[in-house]
């Protein structure tokens, strides 16, 4: 867009490594990067590719264990610094650069605000410390900015604390605080990854609007292809600390040159391709029925209210909803982790909602669950073999030899073979951990498998692999799947039916995933529109 205009930020030969124990682990291998005035550049890469390290390195916020081998940073206005000087010498005038030249947005915006300070105090200290305003102007400046960012009642906001605000609101406030110093470059490090689709769209369109309005230059760091496609002018693809491709967004997405980019795009289209699944046969019996389920911890704020849903044999049903809509609580109720306040959960016609003790544990054979954070669900000190044997031990199934044989069989089924079966989670990749979690659930031969955001935290490559694996296992072992997710495209490609949840209830019953877009429900339409915008339409 502004390709011809002047360079505003130049990073050259940036090398960063992390020291751990005796060895140094290189993260960035001599990276070069140029940003031009007024453009939005997307730095695209998988987790661990070094993209966050780049953001921290050019703002001087690397932890002490990181070592800058070489690298220089040049900013408009003749500021040039040698980043390699940063290792403890303190010779770089960061205070002059941070805030006024470079502003930074963090992934978890609520964590980026001081929990015991009001939003107003954040503005105040930022403005006063930089002498950008006199004390009596602070309020008017912050109110003006907040209004610009879509808050209609900024005065209330100024006196509230971060914990009273949603994640999306916190991110917009962080943006406002960053903008109050009128920085030249905004570096946004995964600013929307922790948000649901609707807030994600809000924040991205605000960043875009501010960029056009204020002539801001934006470096957007993300792992999400849809985000990159929606907002950037130029894309830089990073793989394992090396720049593998850069070019205009149209060019990179339509004619990717690097093998890595091509793979990334292929996986994404695999994940989001519309389902080619036929709905299950009409005759199949109802396996699980949730009837008017109600769950609340605090009587004034029910999490799940009046939720009803059915799951047929061998059917895959998706539950779609934003964060906080109660979909995870629903899953936990079905899995027996929570006891519902009212309503029933029928498994082949028998109510299982109030069961306790031994009877409850017997249900574990029939309903299993896979969690979002697979690594956290596995005990770090046990081998894959032991982990898969665990449920067999808990429910006293088979003798020792049989358990080992069963565990090996299911581990092979999910692609953990040979020596990897005797490794522990810390030595395994995130994808492998999720595979173990799946094997551990399937070893009990369940009738229902609940996947609670089981692929949400994964890179698109691993996401595609896990979904493919689940599809294969589903075909082979003929269980039903209840897939909980906030990601429309994943659900559409994977499920027979989708039910949309908002505010603790289903506005309408499940519908064939191919017909989801025909729904007349406004909330469903909103979700689809936001997701669709990110998919195809540029913000």
């Amino acid at each position, binding site marked *: 867009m502004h390709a011809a205009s002047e360079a505003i930020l130049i990073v050259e030969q940036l090398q960063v490594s992390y020291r751990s124990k005796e060895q140094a682990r290189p993260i960035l291998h001599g990276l070069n990067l140029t940003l031009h005035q007024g453009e939005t550049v997307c730095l695209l890469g998988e987790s661990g590719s070094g993209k966050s390290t780049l953001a921290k390195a050019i*703002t001087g*916020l690397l932890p*002490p264990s990181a070592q800058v081998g070489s690298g220089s940073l040049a900013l408009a206005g003749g500021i040039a610094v040698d980043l390699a000087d940063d290792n403890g010498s303190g010779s770089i005038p*960061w*205070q*002059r*650069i*941070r*805030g*006024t030249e*470079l*502003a*930074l947005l*963090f992934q*978890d915006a609520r*964590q*980026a*605000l*001081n*929990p*015991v*300070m*009001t939003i107003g105090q954040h503005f105040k*200290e*930022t403005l006063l*410390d*930089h002498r950008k305003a006199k004390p009596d102007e602070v309020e008017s400046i912050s109110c003006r900015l907040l209004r610009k*960012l*879509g*808050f*209609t*009642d*900024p*005065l*209330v*906001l100024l006196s*509230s*604390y971060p*914990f*009273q*605000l949603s994640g999306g*609101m916190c991110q*917009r406030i*962080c943006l406002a*605080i*960053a903008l109050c*110093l009128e920085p030249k470059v905004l570096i946004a490090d995964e600013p929307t990854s922790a948000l649901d689709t*609707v807030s994600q*769209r*809000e924040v991205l*369109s*605000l960043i875009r609007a501010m960029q056009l309005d204020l002539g801001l230059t934006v470096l957007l760091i993300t792992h999400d292809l849809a985000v990159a496609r929606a907002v950037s002018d130029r894309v830089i693809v990073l793989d394992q600390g090396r720049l593998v491709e850069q070019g205009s967004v149209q060019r990179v997405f339509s004619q990717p040159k690097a093998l890595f980019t091509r793979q990334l795009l292929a996986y994404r289209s695999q994940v989001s391709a519309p389902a080619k699944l036929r709905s299950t046969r009409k005759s199949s019996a109802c396996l699980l029925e949730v009837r008017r389920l109600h769950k609340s911890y605090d009587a004034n704020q029910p999490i799940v209210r009046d939720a009803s849903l059915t799951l047929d044999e061998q059917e895959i049903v998706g539950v779609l909803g934003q964060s906080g809509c109660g979909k995870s609580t629903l899953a936990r109720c079905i899995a027996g982790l929570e006891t519902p306040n009212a309503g029933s959960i029928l498994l082949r016609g028998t109510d299982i909602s109030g069961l306790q003790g031994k009877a409850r544990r017997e249900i574990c054979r029939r309903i299993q669950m896979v969690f979002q954070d697979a690594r956290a669900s596995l005990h770090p000190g046990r081998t894959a073999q032991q982990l898969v044997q665990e449920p067999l031990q808990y429910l006293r199934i088979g003798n020792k030899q049989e358990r080992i044989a069963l565990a090996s069989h299911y581990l092979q089924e999910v692609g953990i073979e040979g020596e990897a079966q005797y490794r522990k989670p810390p030595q395994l990749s995130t994808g492998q951990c999720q595979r173990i979690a799946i094997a551990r659930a399937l070893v009990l031969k369940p009738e229902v498998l609940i996947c609670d955001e089981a692929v949400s935290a994964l890179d698109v490559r691993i996401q595609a692999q896990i979904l493919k694996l689940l599809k294969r296992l589903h075909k082979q072992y003929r269980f039903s799947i209840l897939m909980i997710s906030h990601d429309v495209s994943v659900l559409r490609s994977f499920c027979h039916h989708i039910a949309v949840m908002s505010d603790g209830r289903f506005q309408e019953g499940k519908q064939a995933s191919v017909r989801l877009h025909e729904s007349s429900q406004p909330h469903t339409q*909103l979700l689809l529109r936001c997701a669709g915008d990110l998919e195809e339409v540029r913000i």
Partner: protein
Amino acid sequence: MAVLLRKLMEALLTLICATVILFMLIRLAPGDPAVLLLGQPSEVAAMHTEVYEQKAAELREQWGLDQPMAIQYVSWLGRLVQLDLGTSLHTGRAVSAELAERLPATLQLTAAALAVQLLLGFWLGIVSALKAGTFSDQLIRLACVTLASTPAFVTGLCALLLFAVTLGAYEISSEASWSRLWLPALTMGLASMPQFARMVRANMLAELGQTYVLAALSRGLARRRVIGQASRNALLPLVTVTALSAATFASGAVVIESLFAWPGIGKYALDSILRKDYPVIQGYAFVMVTLVILIHLCVDVLYAYIDPRLQRKRRQVTRGVNEHA
């Protein structure tokens, strides 16, 4: 307000439970309670056996010692409420008066020692955290560990030896005067400082690892301001610890008071144990327990005001947000 009332009720319940324990302890003690409270016949030399027996019988009747335990407890509690803690066997005066006379000295010592602990511990803890991993950090930690390993009475004896005997800068007497306060306060404060410094350091390091510190730095805020914010948040959870240490302090003062002949209630209680003056011990225990519960109550209330996150009644802010930007 409702929270305050609930806390108050809880504190009251705790106090009642604590008095039950105290009462049981007294009743479980071997021997006749009347004899315990009156002193052994052999030790009450000025009294004839007949007079003693009569006194004991009077006491038994007055305290209802032949009645069921529950009734005894209630009447005992009734006297406690009226601050009737009995009469000292040694001086013959009311225990409440004796304790009230000596309480100010203990509070004075405790407050001074607490000030030493807080100022020194805060400073060393923050410095140690900011310089984590460097030589000065290690030096501070080593000094703290060594100090924490030295019994307070050894430090106290050394201090006495040095300042009172060798230098003659400290007067040994049994008066509670401001000029005599500094040495026991310093000894007591130094003994409890290392633990506090260690907690300050740990909390400060945890705060420095938070994203909001990075974010504040990324906005180009002055280093001093960022450190100030982090240290404020690091200190918040230490309010409880400080208050608790104030409570243990007042009781731990026994050692220091007896060593420096500081006329506080700790020393008085200790002397009473050696004199077998039971009413005093009982009164002392009651006063200390009440003091601790009061301090805990104050902390609970104070907390709600310091930390906005704990003000549960605050509603979620949803106004000021339009649906979609």
